[in-house]
């Protein structure tokens, strides 16, 4: 090889490296893999729907920054189901039959997921979803939940919570259970009644209200009159804050209080919610952040959520379950090197997938695995996991006032 040839070879090599952008991954090429889903981008569930949109965009960007899926770029088609399950059904039908997407990803919230599941079943599509709240209603064999509730969360989670309280310096002897009739929290509250009864915690109040209730004053007054050792609130979204505000107005703070699925941002910012408990699968502290992928995701999510104007930019249950759903899809496609729904579903049933919030398996009843729900508490203006001990924030303990 003469000098000129060596120079030309070196130049071509340098140019090739420059074109690759110095990346360790080859840029994806070929026809994009199209993944279709709907999200509640408007309507009453839009606040959380936006979280799932940001997460999906982050994951797809991360995939395409590497070598996509199977070396092909990924295109995510997301449509607005307006928080309406009936519209979600129509849109999934369109995604499969008109857009002819390769894969589908679940929408947000139980109602829309049930709708999507019906469509997926009709077309034998794999459906990975992130926010389904009533496991015993999910009968389709190719659905895979990444919100790791376990098959019977109405039994397992109240036990986890009462275990935490039983280990505290003041285990509750009486309980007041007040709940919205919103399906995914109502059945948990009914489960909590049974669990409390079995554990010998005396129920001194049980109340139900319709979702969309406007006046929490009388409910707060009844909670105050009952004055139980422990208040279980089957609340979703803003309902928890509304009850806290109503209790504050009559100068009442429960001795210990738990909220099933509160809007995490508003609750952690409320001065009157200090020490309130809630359920979670992920919080922004070790051991969850010990995973490098989780750490990187948190950083990007925080930035993009702030840019999108979300008041609460933290990664918690919603964002973590959503990211985990994409991880599960990625793992199945990568392992099987296939986009065939049957092949992917079979692989998922036989394998476990490591996600940012834990290892998921799908070989239990209705494809549910372990209940990975933990107990978190508002402490000094931030959420920290306090139970079980092995996933508690460093130095954090359950505070019982």
């Amino acid at each position, binding site marked *: 090889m003469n000098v000129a040839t060596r120079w030309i070879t070196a130049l071509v090599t340098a140019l090739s490296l420059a074109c690759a952008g110095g990346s360790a991954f080859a840029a994806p090429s070929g026809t994009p893999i199209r993944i279709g889903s709907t999200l509640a981008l*408007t*309507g*009453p569930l*839009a*606040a959380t*729907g*936006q979280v799932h949109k940001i997460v999906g965009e982050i994951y797809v960007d991360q995939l395409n920054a590497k070598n996509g899926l199977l070396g092909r770029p990924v295109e995510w088609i997301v449509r607005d189901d307006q*928080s309406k399950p009936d519209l979600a059904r129509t849109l999934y039908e369109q995604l499969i039959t008109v857009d002819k997407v390769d894969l589908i990803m679940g929408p947000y919230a139980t109602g829309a997921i049930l709708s999507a599941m019906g469509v997926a079943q009709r077309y034998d599509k794999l459906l990975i979803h992130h926010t389904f709240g009533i496991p015993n209603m999910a009968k389709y064999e190719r659905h895979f939940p990444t919100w790791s509730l376990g098959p019977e969360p109405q039994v397992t989670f109240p036990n986890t919570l009462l275990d935490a309280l039983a280990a505290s310096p003041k285990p509750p002897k009486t309980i007041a259970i007040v709940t919205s*009739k919103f399906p995914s929290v109502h059945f948990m509250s009914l489960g909590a009644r049974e669990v409390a009864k079995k554990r010998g915690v005396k129920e001194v109040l049980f*109340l*139900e*209200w*319709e979702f*969309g*209730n*406007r*006046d929490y*004053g*009388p*409910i707060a*007054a*009844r909670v*105050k*009159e009952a004055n139980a050792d422990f208040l279980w609130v089957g609340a979703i*979204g*803003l309902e928890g*804050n*509304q009850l806290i*505000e*109503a209790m*504050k*107005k*009559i*100068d009442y703070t429960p001795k210990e209080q738990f909220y099933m699925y509160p*809007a995490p*941002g*508003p609750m952690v*910012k409320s001065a009157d919610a200090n020490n309130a408990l809630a359920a979670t699968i992920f919080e922004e502290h070790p051991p969850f952040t010990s995973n490098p992928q989780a750490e990187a995701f948190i950083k990007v999510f925080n930035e993009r959520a702030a840019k*999108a*104007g*979300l*008041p*609460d930019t933290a990664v918690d249950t919603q964002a973590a379950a959503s990211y985990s759903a994409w991880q599960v899809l990625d793992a199945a496609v990568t392992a099987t090197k296939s986009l065939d729904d049957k092949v992917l579903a079979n692989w998922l049933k036989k394998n476990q997938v490591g996600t940012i919030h834990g290892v998921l398996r799908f070989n239990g009843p209705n494809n549910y695995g372990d209940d990975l729900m933990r107990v978190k508490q508002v402490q000094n203006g931030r959420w920290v996991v306090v139970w079980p001990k092995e996933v508690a924030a460093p130095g954090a303990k359950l505070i019982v006032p």
Partner: protein
Amino acid sequence: MNLPGGTLLGQAVLSGIFIGALYGLLGLGLSLTWGLLGQINLAHFALAFLGAYLTYHLATVGGLDPLVTLALIVPGFFVLGVAMQWLFARFRVSPLNSLLVTFGFTVIVETVIQSVWTADFRRLESAYASVNFRVGTLFVPLPELLTLGIAIALSLGAWAVLRYTDIGRAMRAAAEDAPIAAAFGVDERRLAYLVSGASAALAGAAGLCLALSQTLAPAQIYAWIGVIFAVVMMGGPGRALGPLVAGIVIGVSEAVTMAVTAPSWAPVVSFSLLILLLIARPGRA
């Protein structure tokens, strides 16, 4: 069923009066346009929430006292109401079509709110929010007390205008029989602008009360429609004091229901009362 204690019942009644005042205030503008202009203005709810978000914004970003924001919002909304009426008149929108047009306007306002303030929850943290008065064993929160005061003042003011002023008499005459009123020199077109502007301004004032006592989310616009329609129909469209009285009756009934029985029965109360009233007085609405 256990009978509630005196404190519980008293606190529930107070809570019902306060939420009823908010019902009444939200229903006042709707009632006026319905009764005097024959328009069923669904956009009234959107305007009230737009007013609430503007109050939130001016107070949190602009640093204004929430009550001071009324000085900006009320005139602004009056102009908006006049503009809406101009559109209605320009395109000769019928009463039935007004329902559809204003629903469309509501969706547009919801979208605007969501794009500016996002779909996430917003809570106005004002100096009033944490102030409570204690009367015996009962607690009286200041934001709700302000709402009650504003609702009473505006309802009485609207009632007095309609009853004792020439403009009010002209409005009632035009609503009763427009051609005859016109023969007596009543300018129905200009009065319609005034009613529509006043109604929108009332929505702005209701927005202040929403911002003071409620956590805001765009989709909550629709959560109030059913009960406020019940309030307006019970109170009688076009009657200034009707919505306040009906609102308090419904609010207290709901609250006592929640205190005595299961809270999930409360929504049944407002519509049961409305049905009973319509059976007893079929020509009410």
